[in-house]
């Protein structure tokens, strides 16, 4: 069982790897500094989108410097840092799949066009296939059709799913997926609801 789980994780990581994106340039720190100076000069704050969003963190810096392929030691160290900051809630991580479905459908949140009272979503369908009933799904990320049916809903699986949504960079440093918990986009409860959407046997994702 344990072994099967590890194999599955390895397979998922391979499917989510960010590698074959057209010639992402490796740039020098000086070039990055130049780009960052241009951003600071040519952007202005609007709505909730403050200029502080232009400040790169260690993950972005590493991925930008190395064309999304940082040296393994650096990647592992930063992934561990990101993982340590997830703060997994105690107990079951499975919320309400029906609420999760609405969160997966919603593309709102953190845009300057979103009002302060708008509830953020996960934008999941923009990139992933989830329920077989929803044909309008993106393909930037892997299909998650039957996610829980294929993998079960063990505590390890719940933790992996929660963590992956909270901070995908904790598992694959230059993953293209947004860090939905880490960035403050989704709340702990919303992520639990998404975990339910992916793992609950009653969810259309697993039908």
């Amino acid at each position, binding site marked *: 069982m344990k072994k099967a789980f590890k194999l599955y994780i390895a397979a998922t990581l391979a499917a989510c790897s960010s590698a074959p994106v057209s010639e992402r340039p490796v740039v020098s720190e000086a070039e990055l500094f*130049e780009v960052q100076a241009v951003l600071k000069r040519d952007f202005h704050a*609007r709505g909730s989108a403050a200029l502080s969003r232009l400040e790169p963190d260690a993950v972005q810096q590493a991925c930008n410097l190395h064309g999304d392929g940082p040296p393994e030691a650096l990647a592992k160290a930063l992934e561990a840092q990101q993982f340590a900051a997830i703060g997994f809630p105690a107990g079951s991580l499975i919320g309400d799949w029906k609420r999760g479905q609405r969160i997966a459908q919603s593309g709102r949140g953190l845009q300057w066009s979103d009002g302060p009272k708008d509830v953020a979503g996960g934008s999941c369908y923009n990139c992933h296939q989830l329920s077989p009933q929803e044909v309008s799904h993106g*393909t*930037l990320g892997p299909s998650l059709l039957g996610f829980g049916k294929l993998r079960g809903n063990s505590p390890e699986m719940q933790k992996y799913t929660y963590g992956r949504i909270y901070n995908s960079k904790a598992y694959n440093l230059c993953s293209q997926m947004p860090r939905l918990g880490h960035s403050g986009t989704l709340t702990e409860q919303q992520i639990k609801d998404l975990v339910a959407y992916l793992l609950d046997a009653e969810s259309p994702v697993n039908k």
Partner: protein
Amino acid sequence: MNRFAVLVVVLALGVSRADAQDTKKEIEKYQKMIADSSPVELFELQGETLWKKRQGPSNVSLKRCDLGLGAGELKGAYALLPRHFKDADRVMDLETRLLHCMVTLQGRSREEATKRVFGNADTPSEIEYLSAYIAGESRGTPMAPGSAHPKEAAAYELGRKLFFYRAGPWDFSCASCHGEEGKRIRMQDLPILSTPAAARPVVATWPAYRVSNSEFKTMQWRINDCYRQMRMPEPNYASDLTVAITTYLSVTGRGEPYRGPGTKR
């Protein structure tokens, strides 16, 4: 748009995955259909009127505006943009150059001229109308933006770096969505804009009319709205940053005769 509503219904009903191929065919059929009934020509006509209209403190029209081929020379001018302009010593795209002419010829303030650059279905903006007219005057001319001048080369390089630069709370770059073959957001196909083959048809059809919301959209708007969806702050209109990205895309996708303004979903 009724036809759009019909398509939405078609998509909503076409639920089974076995129908995916049919859905794609339906979308292609729909795209052909909307191109045949596009109101782009009306935008071009209104743009021509505005081009000739006396405006601003100087009470002159834009007819003496030099878009690169000499004052008032419009035939094929858009196809050579962005390019370096000696008088401003800056690389400029169409909108940046129009703004320059509004300020220098018509005596208008930058603030006034940029107060409402992105319009809506009811009231398109002046610069949208003008863009439609001027771009239309390049139909049939191969796209050949400037790339030889050192500042043009620098704009291309900066644009390339910006294209791949990941930033903001969602860690996105342009390449996050436009970097892999055959990808979609929802049902929308995403061209790999860093490759000539995919960039060419894009460069040859912008600016464009958008059927889904009945709005005419410019390239400055396109970049602005991508950054909005990337959860970034807002780029300054007609800034060196937005011009650099347009330069990178235009040079990457040069060579195809202009056949816009296009009609998009």
